């Protein structure tokens, strides 16, 4: 067992309100620079939708991630052979138009335009060329546009949904969508690292943050292709690739990353998980159906004495082990089994997990139910009949999950490599907790029924309360459990301070040795 620590994230999608505060926080700190204007290390997209860059999930276009061939995984569009042969021209590289051409407006014109018959306007100008442009796309251009043919219907995740299922999703009066905030997943089997010919990208041993060494990057731009999440970006001005750094300077100081700190919906959780690094290769090679389970299996129980022992042998500081025990992410992923990775089939073993959203499920009816209910409905008001309201649907509560207007298949395409049961399991759990809380607070559901619902998903009332607390009430320190110190206290953590005797102290980069 080779125990390592990994900073992992939970995004609770039920709570995301799509406000983009996270994106702005990130942009203001990191990417408000020439060449990086178009980069959104954190972006929030509307699903169903095509996302950013357009159709990033469609690996037939972008060739990202790993694919399994003859029992062995290899990079789909990069790697030693393909990468080096395509180094002069990478045929799968997304270009700026796949994101959008960054722009601003000639605001000054509003003030300085000479007097005339027309109202002065602020024309949009390209931030690349400085010339006036017609804006074709922008950041979160598809925001809330899930019903439109250009965005919602072109979502790559609709691929293996039946016609009827798709139609059901896009009926205007029943339209449902949700937000998917994305950052770099700081994967355990990062395709970006593997694809970099220069070896500029690396994973930090201490916390698993994946970084690009700007000094070593030579603009071979293979990582942009290889990352299936398109979270490595090419800076067209500096000629270097850049990516989310998980605000490591903040983490090292014990602060939450900017996107997480600023999150209005408080959907984000950050904590350490311990995992077995010896298993990475096997897990990444697992059968597609077993991929999610295998990945979750890698994550170790931080309370298990064997794990603790192995962790200490591996040099993990006690503070990190303790942080892993208090980690909110561990609870969501392993203890409660509520979270799933995004597109596990890309096989990069992402370490950002999502709690799938419930709301569309709650507000939906399937096509078949629809037919059946048609005559009962007031044709103008389109009010759903009484017995389908949330509080009275108790008897069929889990039936609703299965018959949801938002097909489980769609969610499964996103979060579990197509396995609907996985998603169903999470949604049932979330629903059970709602029923429980409703029984307790509103009181219109008998408690014994609520308990039965909990039982069916394997929760006790105590667990349900814990989940409720961490979901709805959790304070800052519950949501972000960051090991107290990595670098700034490295001295105390790692060494007997007596060891410093006879050395040159801080700040010196060369030992104080006598010269020749």
């Amino acid at each position, binding site marked *: 067992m080779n125990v390592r620590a990994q900073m992992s994230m939970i995004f609770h999608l039920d709570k995301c309100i799509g406000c983009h505060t996270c994106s702005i926080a990130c942009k203001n700190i990191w990417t408000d620079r020439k060449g990086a204007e178009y980069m959104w290390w954190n972006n929030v997209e509307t699903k169903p939708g095509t996302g950013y860059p357009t159709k990033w999930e469609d690996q037939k276009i972008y060739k990202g991630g790993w694919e399994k061939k003859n029992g062995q995984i290899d990079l789909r569009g990069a790697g030693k052979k393909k990468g080096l042969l395509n180094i002069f021209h990478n*045929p799968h590289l997304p270009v700026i138009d796949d994101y959008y051409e960054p722009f601003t407006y000639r605001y000054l014109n509003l003030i300085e335009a000479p007097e005339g018959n027309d109202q002065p306007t602020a024309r949009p100008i390209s931030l690349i060329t400085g010339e006036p442009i017609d804006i074709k796309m922008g950041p979160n251009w598809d925001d809330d546009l899930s019903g439109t043919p250009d965005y919602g219907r072109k979502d790559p995740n609709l691929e293996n949904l039946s016609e009827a299922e798709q139609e059901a999703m896009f009926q205007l009066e029943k339209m449902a969508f949700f937000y998917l905030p994305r950052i770099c997943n700081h994967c355990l089997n990062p395709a970006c690292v593997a694809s970099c010919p220069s070896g500029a990208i690396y994973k930090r041993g201490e916390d698993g943050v994946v970084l690009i060494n700007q000094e070593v990057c030579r603009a071979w731009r293979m990582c942009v292709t290889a990352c299936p999440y398109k979270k490595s970006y090419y800076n067209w001005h500096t000629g270097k690739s850049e990516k989310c750094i998980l605000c490591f300077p903040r983490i090292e100081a014990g602060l939450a990353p900017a996107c997480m700190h600023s999150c209005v919906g408080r959907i984000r959780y950050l904590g350490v998980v311990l995992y077995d690094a010896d298993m990475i290769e096997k897990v990444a090679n697992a059968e597609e159906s077993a991929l999610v389970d295998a990945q979750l299996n890698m994550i170790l129980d931080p309370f298990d004495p064997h794990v603790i022992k192995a962790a200490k042998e591996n040099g993990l500081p006690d503070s990190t082990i303790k942080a892993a025990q208090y980690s909110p992410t561990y609870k969501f992923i392993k203890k409660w089994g509520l979270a799933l990775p995004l597109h596990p089939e890309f096989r990069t073993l992402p370490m950002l997990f999502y709690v799938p959203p419930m709301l569309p499920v709650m507000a939906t009816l399937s096509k078949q139910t629809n037919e059946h209910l048609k005559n009962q409905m007031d044709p103008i008001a389109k009010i759903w009949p009484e017995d389908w309201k949330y509080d009275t649907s108790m008897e069929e509560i889990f039936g609703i999950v299965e018959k949801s207007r938002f097909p489980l298949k769609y969610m499964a395409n996103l979060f579990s490599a197509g396995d609907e049961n996985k998603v169903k399991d999470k949604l049932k759990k979330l629903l059970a907790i709602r029923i429980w809380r409703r029984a307790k607070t509103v009181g219109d559901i008998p408690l014994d029924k609520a308990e039965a619902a909990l039982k069916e998903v394997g929760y006790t009332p105590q667990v349900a309360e814990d989940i409720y607390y961490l979901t709805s009430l959790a304070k800052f320190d519950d949501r972000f459990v960051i090991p107290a110190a990595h670098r700034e206290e490295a001295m105390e953590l790692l060494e007997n301070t007596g060891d410093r005797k006879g050395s040159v102290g801080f700040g010196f980069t060369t030992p104080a040795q006598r010269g020749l």
Partner: protein
Amino acid sequence: MDTLNNFLFIGLPYAALAVFIVGTIIRYINYGYQVSSLSSEFLEGRRLFWGSQPFHWGIIFLFLGHLIGFLFPRSVLLWNGHPVRLLIIEVTGFIFGLSAFVGLLNLFIRRITEARLKIVTNKMDLLIEIVLLLQIFTGLWVAFNYRWGSSWYASVMSPYLWSIFKFSPDVQSVIALPWMAKLHIIGAYLIVLLFPFTRLVHFLVAPLHYIGRPYQIVIWYRDRKTLRNPRSPWVAKYPQNN
């Protein structure tokens, strides 16, 4: 005349080499961040294909051809002893030369016509592209008109270049070459001279080490295992993993 020849074929190569070595080292150490291929594919990807691919494969083949002729002149002459083999080498060389020329021409036109690319183009980019274009052109001219280049390169140029590297320059044979060939030689020195000041430096960081490297890279700030082991020796410098 002698002074000019001495300047062009003795002075220039040494000056070029000196500037190349010192300039490259200084650039790498002081401006290491700027050593990059500065790819512009992200701003324009379609036309780049028709420029970058033929140019790079062509120029790599030509470079290796010149290198082999310089290092192993005897083998080249031996190989050329048979007319069919000679023809093979000359024709392939010429095709790769054409490919490099057309590719570079495409690159050059692309660079000056695409509005987005103008933003990421500097004077040195244009200068080196023009010099390279002329260089490939003179090369093609010489290969076409003075046959067979591969043979006389091995027997005339190789000894001359060796004499330069051995610090006992002997320019007699070079002086006798036609002026187009001389231009090609001078152009080569010019490129070597300009090298550290252009984007050509990315040639020196070609990622060949990728072939032998494991895919995943994990870097630790400190080697914690060694640090924590009571048996590891007392040192003033701490074991680091990066």
